[in-house]
């Protein structure tokens, strides 16, 4: 399928995600995201930031000035829902790419129970905490949290998209949709902060989404099970 398969330095391919592969070298590099996945991710990310900024502008009077970035209040009001539609379909693309690898496993519960050791940088020698597949429990929670919140946001958003849908709901339903949309938006911004911070804190992560690959050391340190699986060509154990 892709060029790296015939590259002599390739060691192995993943079973769970056949696009990933390990390349020998100094350091060893590991493919993590295809160009398609990266483009898909950055369209979604751009939409999310634009939605957060335009949404916050209408959420609190002290942030109303942010409507200036979109050409004024009327344009902000008109554009926000359309950006939401783009995000919904773009995120749907990410969802179908990644959902299988984000299924919850028993080891994820252990990881969450011992989250304080992970946050405290004390997880790197413990086999229970280092033998992680392509995604750890935190990443899975971000994935499912985003998925759930985007469903809530698009459904409540349609109810309050007055230009097209005002006739399809009562005022009481609009009130309910309004508060649900606001709270879900606040929560998704918090989830987004966790997502961005984790990528900054764990050095070497951002390259996975910009250049598509990470170093072997990064994979060994944070997703050892995924690395072993790629090298051996089958899930360990």
């Amino acid at each position, binding site marked *: 399928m892709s060029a790296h398969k015939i590259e002599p330095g390739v060691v192995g391919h993943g079973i769970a995600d056949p696009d990933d592969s390990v390349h020998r070298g100094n350091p060893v590099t590991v493919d993590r995201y295809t160009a398609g996945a990266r483009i898909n991710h950055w369209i979604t990310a751009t939409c999310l930031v634009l939605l957060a900024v335009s949404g916050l502008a209408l959420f609190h009077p002290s942030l109303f000035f942010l409507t200036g970035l979109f050409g004024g*209040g*009327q344009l902000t*009001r008109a554009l926000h829902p359309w950006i939401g539609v783009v995000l919904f379909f773009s995120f749907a693309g990410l969802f179908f790419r990644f959902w299988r690898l984000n299924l919850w496993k028993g080891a994820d519960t252990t990881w969450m129970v011992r989250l304080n050791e992970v946050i405290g940088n004390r997880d790197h020698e413990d086999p229970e905490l280092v033998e992680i597949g392509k995604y750890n429990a935190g990443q899975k929670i971000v994935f499912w949290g985003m998925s759930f919140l985007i469903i809530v946001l698009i459904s409540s958003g349609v109810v309050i998209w007055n230009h097209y849908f005002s006739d399809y709901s009562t005022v009481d339903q609009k009130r309910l949709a309004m508060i649900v949309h606001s709270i879900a938006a*606040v929560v998704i911004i918090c989830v987004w902060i966790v997502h961005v911070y984790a990528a900054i804190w764990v050095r070497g992560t951002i390259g996975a989404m910009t250049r598509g690959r990470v*170093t072997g050391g990064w994979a*060994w340190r944070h997703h050892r099970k995924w690395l072993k699986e790629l090298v051996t060509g089958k899930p360990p154990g």
Partner: protein
Amino acid sequence: MFPPLPNPSVQPSASKFGEQDLVRRSASTVPQPARQLTPMAKLIDVSKCIGCKACQSACLEWNDLREDVGINHGSYDNPLDLTPNSLTVMRFTEWVNPETKNLEWLIRKDGCMHCADPGCLKACPAPGAIVQYSNGIVDFVHDHCIGCGYCVTGCPFNIPRISKADNKAYKCTLCSDRMAVGQGPACAKACPTQAIVFGTKDDMKKWADDRIKDLKSRGFKNAGLYDPPGVGGTHVMYVLHHADQPKIYAGLPENPRISPVVQLWKGLTKYAGLTAIAAFAAIGVLHHVVMGPNRVTEDDEQNAKRLAEDRS
């Protein structure tokens, strides 16, 4: 008879109130006004209304609005609901009084109530799009309106309508432009039976008292004034012959108040939301300062290399 409003002078005159008399301004604050204008009110005596719709015509005429030609829905209601053009409509209800078995034809002139505590203004996110003057007028400033429809969710009376033509919200202004030069609302001026009268809120309450006494003497023992306290009172009031059940007048709310959902959204959610976002960002910064970055070590790279080499 209530003394009819005198025809004012046609000479140009300065506006009787303006920006300096604002008591509330949406999504922003205003300084305490230096003077308090006399609170004004429109009193609609439902028992005197003959359903002629002169008020509707006068409203369209004064505000230079045209309503689309509608269709007959089998009732006198025309148009069927408020629109961005029809800022007031007559609502006709055929009601059988369960005590007397009489058919009563209830006609209520619907439109903005000019609440003392306006839900539309509370919900509005656009600074200065909704303003309230110390004389009681709640007005929409269309230059600042962004067409989001939040005022619709804020209003306990379901009054504002968003125009599909210019995406701005419209409702009765209490003829603020006429009041500014000492005139009364166009609807009150046009009403042939004085079912609509206009004056200071105190005078209107006194006038309503006389009307209620009269109605009681005619057997309407539940006659009363509709000036709902849940929204701080209104600057458009009704005299109702059945004030104990406002619902029968085409769904006039029993005890209108700003929905608790809207209160929560515009209150706690607004502040707690921004606090939560700021807290998450602060925790991130703090964690990074205390723990430092989580870096891959040379050992990690060597281990990965060994793993990859072993495979070959």
